[in-house]
């Protein structure tokens, strides 16, 4: 068994809403009790629809949000209650790649300055050493010739090139953990694969632990080993990607897999058997299993009792009837 870099225990992040004078305070339960661990140098994917809490989970792990409850253990240190000073250490160890490279990079800095900024903030090296590190980072993401790119401003680059800069910025401090939140959803199809391939190469070469947050299940098996499927703030199913694809045990995963087409001329002739409805409101989530209002197999038990995550057939699923889907 590999050593764990990150362990998340019963993590919750609730956002408070404005409360009335006499009513009880309301919360959006974006992340509501999540447990998982991430090995050193391991790449995992976190998949969910919009509003499932996947981005909030990523940002809470990075302590960009204050967790409401639960533990985040990174390198055997609980970082869920570090103060601002100690957090600087964590900021060097864990980095984020955001979805929209056009918004993530400051337009008034040159590429060189954008990449130098984290080194300046963390007071690392003198001017020559910093320049060397910036050039190294540009080399790693293959923005060459480096001399041409370093003095440019973000508006002079294409979306794919900007995302490379964002990747380089995340890597300048040599982090151990990188969370990429939908890193390619704003890019064109062929550029997507290019950026994901680059991320995978760097992850393997630099032995970074990597969390790929996405709504696109089809790309996950190319870029990570383990899969976590989130629904309404909780993890519905997790395990080896190929195992889950060949034998999904949670009805939500089954619906998700059915909904994604592969390019095939036969598709136009069939109607897909998909549950109707949309993800629930997280202010007042459904009782019992959160998927039960849309689940074709829901029973009285699903309405009342919340299913626990249990191990079945080599992976984990949170469904009362998961074993009945086992082939």
């Amino acid at each position, binding site marked *: 068994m590999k050593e764990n870099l990150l362990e998340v225990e019963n993590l919750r992040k609730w956002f408070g809403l404005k409360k009335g004078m006499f009513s009880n305070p309301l919360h959006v339960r974006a992340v509501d009790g999540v447990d998982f661990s991430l090995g050193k140098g391991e790449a995992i994917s976190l998949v969910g*629809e*919009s509003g499932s809490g996947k981005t909030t989970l990523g940002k809470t792990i990075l302590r960009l949000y204050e967790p409401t409850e639960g533990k985040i253990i990174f390198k055997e240190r609980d970082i869920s209650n570090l103060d601002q000073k100690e957090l600087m250490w964590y900021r060097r160890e864990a980095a984020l790649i955001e979805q929209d490279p056009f918004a993530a990079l400051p337009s008034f800095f040159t590429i060189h300055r954008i990449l130098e900024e984290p080194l300046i903030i963390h007071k690392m090296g003198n001017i020559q050493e910093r320049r060397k590190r910036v050039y190294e980072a540009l080399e790693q993401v293959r923005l060459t010739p480096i001399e041409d790119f370093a003095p440019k401003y973000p508006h002079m680059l*294409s979306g*794919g090139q900007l995302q490379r800069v964002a990747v380089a910025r995340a890597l300048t401090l040599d982090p151990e953990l990188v969370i990429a939140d939908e890193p390619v959803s704003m890019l*064109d*199809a*062929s*550029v*997507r*694969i*290019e950026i994901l*391939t680059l991320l995978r190469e760097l992850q393997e070469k630099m032995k970074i632990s990597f969390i790929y947050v996405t*709504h*696109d*299940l*089809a*790309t996950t*098996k*190319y870029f990570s080993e383990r899969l976590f499927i989130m629904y309404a703030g909780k993890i519905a199913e997790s395990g080896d990607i190929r195992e889950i*694809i060949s034998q999904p045990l949670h009805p939500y995963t089954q*619906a*998700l*897999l*059915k*909904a*994604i*087409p*592969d*390019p*095939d*001329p036969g*598709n*136009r002739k069939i*109607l*897909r058997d*998909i*549950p*109707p409805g*949309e*993800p629930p409101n997280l202010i007042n989530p459904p009782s019992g299993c959160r998927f039960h209002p849309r689940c074709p197999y829901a029973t009285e038990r699903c309405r009342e009792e919340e299913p626990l995550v249990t191990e079945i057939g080599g992976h984990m699923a949170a469904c009362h009837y998961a074993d009945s889907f086992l082939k």
Partner: protein
Amino acid sequence: MTENILECINMRLYYSTRKGPVKAVDNVSFSLGKGESLALVGESGCGKSSLAKAIVKLLPRNVDTYKGQVVLEGQDIMKLNVREFRTEIRWKKISMVFQGAMNSLNPVLKVGYQVAESLLIHESISKEEAQKRAIEALRLVGIHESFVERYPFELSGGMKQRTVIAMALVANPKIVILDEPTSALDVITQANIMNLLKRLKKELGLTYIFITHDIALSSELADKIAVMYAGEIQEIADAEIFYRKPFHPYSQKLMASVPTLRTDKKLEFIRGAPPSLLNPPPGCRFHPRCPSVFDRCSKENPGVFDLGSEHCVKCWWFEGSGEEK
């Protein structure tokens, strides 16, 4: 063979900019049979949406060149003036679901009124009659009558998209152009909308032009697929041929970059970026990125070669294998 409902011949749409004309649609021809669906795929900025707007004559002010023929059931609708086009063609014969339209619903008007609006403007019918037809259109897309009196904020994303589709259907058009109809939706909602579109096609005999950048998704509707690159159609093929093995090097590269869930294949990507349409490369526009380029490609723009059964490829490699169009 079904008769052609729509035929586009040598369509050109250039936008004028300070730096010169942008050739968004350049010499595009295709035909579409009744009840057939055409998927228009390509990377962003290759002219897909411009082609759609050229067909329904919804043009911005900075048009430089707008030429060609659009033949709808034997009538060249490019020749119609603005008023004739508006009263006879748009919405009634050809309607469109715009990209991101679900976010453009008017927040202060009731859903029923917004669906009925095009009828009230284009047809001289009473309010009650229009309302009745709006209810019918909403029912077709699976929205209950009671929602007529609601406002857009009360609807979920999927329902808003259904409403926009109802708006496109309310005047009983023959052709519906769908520009990225599911791009802002979740996968499961997207699959539900695709189911709806398939059902409507069968029930109403609709002809679709389905614009998308997602090739896997395009196979949900396409009987025929047209690949655009840099303002030109590079390949048009039957779905049965295209999704198994496309012919044009660009289509092949595009197919190789599609991640699949159920099969294992190595993913590839296309190096470089699409060219600027101000100054497209000479010869074949794909030649700077093409893996099978040879010297003729950079000099002469390839002709379109018809390989039989309406499979057309715009590439010099197929010069000997088909008739030039």
